[in-house]
């Protein structure tokens, strides 16, 4: 009886593991095969490394190395936005946690609401605003909206609320440190875990964002990889028979598209694995005491 229950439990968990992992595994194996082999061979078979390099040459040749541009753009947008986010949200979280100024509560509430509100809800309003200011189609029209990351401010706020006892700050002040030095000497050195956490969430969110760059950028040379992938999709004949002839001439078939998708998630996957432990704690750490 107990054994059966345990078995059922494991079978359920394993079945879900297959559901979550099989598509990822397929994606990793797909570029090792040619388009025909994808159809004829077993879905989880390994082709050859030669096919991978062939697929890469096709992908790289597409539209004059545009794939490299897309990856480069995405790195540029995500890293710049995340750098601004960090520079802004760590002090802001500190100020909100240990400060006392009029409007503090209001800033906190607005931060909280814009953090919980789905980001996509603000995309069209931001587009309309930037459009009226004629700021469409620039790198800054992606980076600056990305840099507004209220979740980062909230994480820093929650962290400083519990990480620094006010008496520590008083001690620093009594030693003759000004407010700025107090922050630099006491708060900033303690910020390491929060920097890692904010970096993770901000970088991943920016890297994966599709809607905002799709809306505010017009030139395909400026696209981040997410929008670039949609461009590639339109050139893949198996998904878009209209591109049939085009598919032949640009050599973008399913293995190339799979490789493009796979390479596009590598940076996020690296960040994921690196921060797995911190994440599992951090996701809940905010308001629940463990």
């Amino acid at each position: 009886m107990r054994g059966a229950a345990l078995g059922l439990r494991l079978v359920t968990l394993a079945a879900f593991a297959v559901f979550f992992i099989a598509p990822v595994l397929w994606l990793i194996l797909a570029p090792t095969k040619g388009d025909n082999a994808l159809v004829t061979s077993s879905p989880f078979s390994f082709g050859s490394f030669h096919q991978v390099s062939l697929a890469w040459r096709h992908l790289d040749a597409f539209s004059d190395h545009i794939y490299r541009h897309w990856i480069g753009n995405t790195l540029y947008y995500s890293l710049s936005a995340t750098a601004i986010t960090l520079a802004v949200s760590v002090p802001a979280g500190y100020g909100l946690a240990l400060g006392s100024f009029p409007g503090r509560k209001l800033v906190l509430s607005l931060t909280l609401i814009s953090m919980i509100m789905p980001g996509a809800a603000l995309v069209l309003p931001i587009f309309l605003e930037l459009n009226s200011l004629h700021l469409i189609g620039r790198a800054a029209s992606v980076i600056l909206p990305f840099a507004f990351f209220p979740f980062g401010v909230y994480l820093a706020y929650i962290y400083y609320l519990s990480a620094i006892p006010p008496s520590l700050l008083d001690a620093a002040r009594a030693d003759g440190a000004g407010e700025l030095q107090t922050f630099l000497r006491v708060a900033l050195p303690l910020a390491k875990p929060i920097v890692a956490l904010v970096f993770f969430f901000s970088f991943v969110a920016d890297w994966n964002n599709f809607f905002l760059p799709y809306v505010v950028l017009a030139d395909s040379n400026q696209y981040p990889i997410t929008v670039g992938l949609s461009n590639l999709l339109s050139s893949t004949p198996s998904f878009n028979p209209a591109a049939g002839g085009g598919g032949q001439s640009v050599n973008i078939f399913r293995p190339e598209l799979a490789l493009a998708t796979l390479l596009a998630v590598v940076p996020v996957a690296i960040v994921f694995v690196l921060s797995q432990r911190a994440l599992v704690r951090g996701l809940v750490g905010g308001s629940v005491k463990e």
Partner: protein
Amino acid sequence: MSASGPISKHPGATRKRGPRRLRGLPFVLPYLPLLIVFGIAPTIYAIDLAFTNVAGGWVGFHNFVRTYNDYRFGPAFKHILVYTSIWLCLLVVFVVGLALLLHGRAGRVSATFRFLFYIPGALAGAAAVLVWLFMLDPSVSPGSFLLRDVLGADIFAQSIAPGNLAYIFAMIAFWTGAGGWIVVMYGALNTIPPDLEEAARIDGAGPIGIALRLKLPLIRKWIAYMVILSFATGTQLFVEPQLVNQASLGLVPDTWSSNQLAYQLAFRYADFNGAAAIAVDLLAIGLVGAVLIVTRTGLFRTDD
């Protein structure tokens, strides 16, 4: 608490020595422009556009009525409601179920499964959609037998038949997001004091009884959080139908979801006021969701 430090020689430090009641404000200042320009201003501007016409004249609810009567408005909202409902059911049943199953397991096994479930989160957005376009293509999918038996699809176009889309999008969203929520729920379950569980066990409760009558009520507010947040997020659906539209040769309309309709109004018809009206509809849903979470679940602290 004394706020008066000795005079600093550093330039720019003068402000920091201001009255104690302004303490902390300088640190928040660099953040405020971002909050105002990309949080508050677009919201106000969208509301302003939604209630005016091209010439800037006040038109009351005209834009809302006009977009409501658009023949694409009803179907788009129906689609996202059906999609969101399916997704929420999947989340509540399986996220909570799997978290409870994992919580009873030994540390190692549980951690491995949590990590496996979490991996697809790295493929959020466009990448996930592409992966699932492959999975839905019977000619290459490892699950082609499922596509034939469950969806009756022999070719890709049949897989993404309009009637299937809400289910497909719900499954993609579940695939990418469930792992993260399982981690959250698992973390919440860990906050339940072990002696509480021990006491229930001594009282003769079995593992299922403990899960349902003790654990479930204790993570109720996290479930509420997940449901409200996912509801608000679900209504904003954009990238999934947009990509499927591109891969379907127009079989799937480019106004499948409400956000797509707003996008089309703005980009194809340059009807910014109509687009703003729909954006405000969606913004209102998001806002109500956010306010509910903050005021009702008590999960987020705004005071110390």
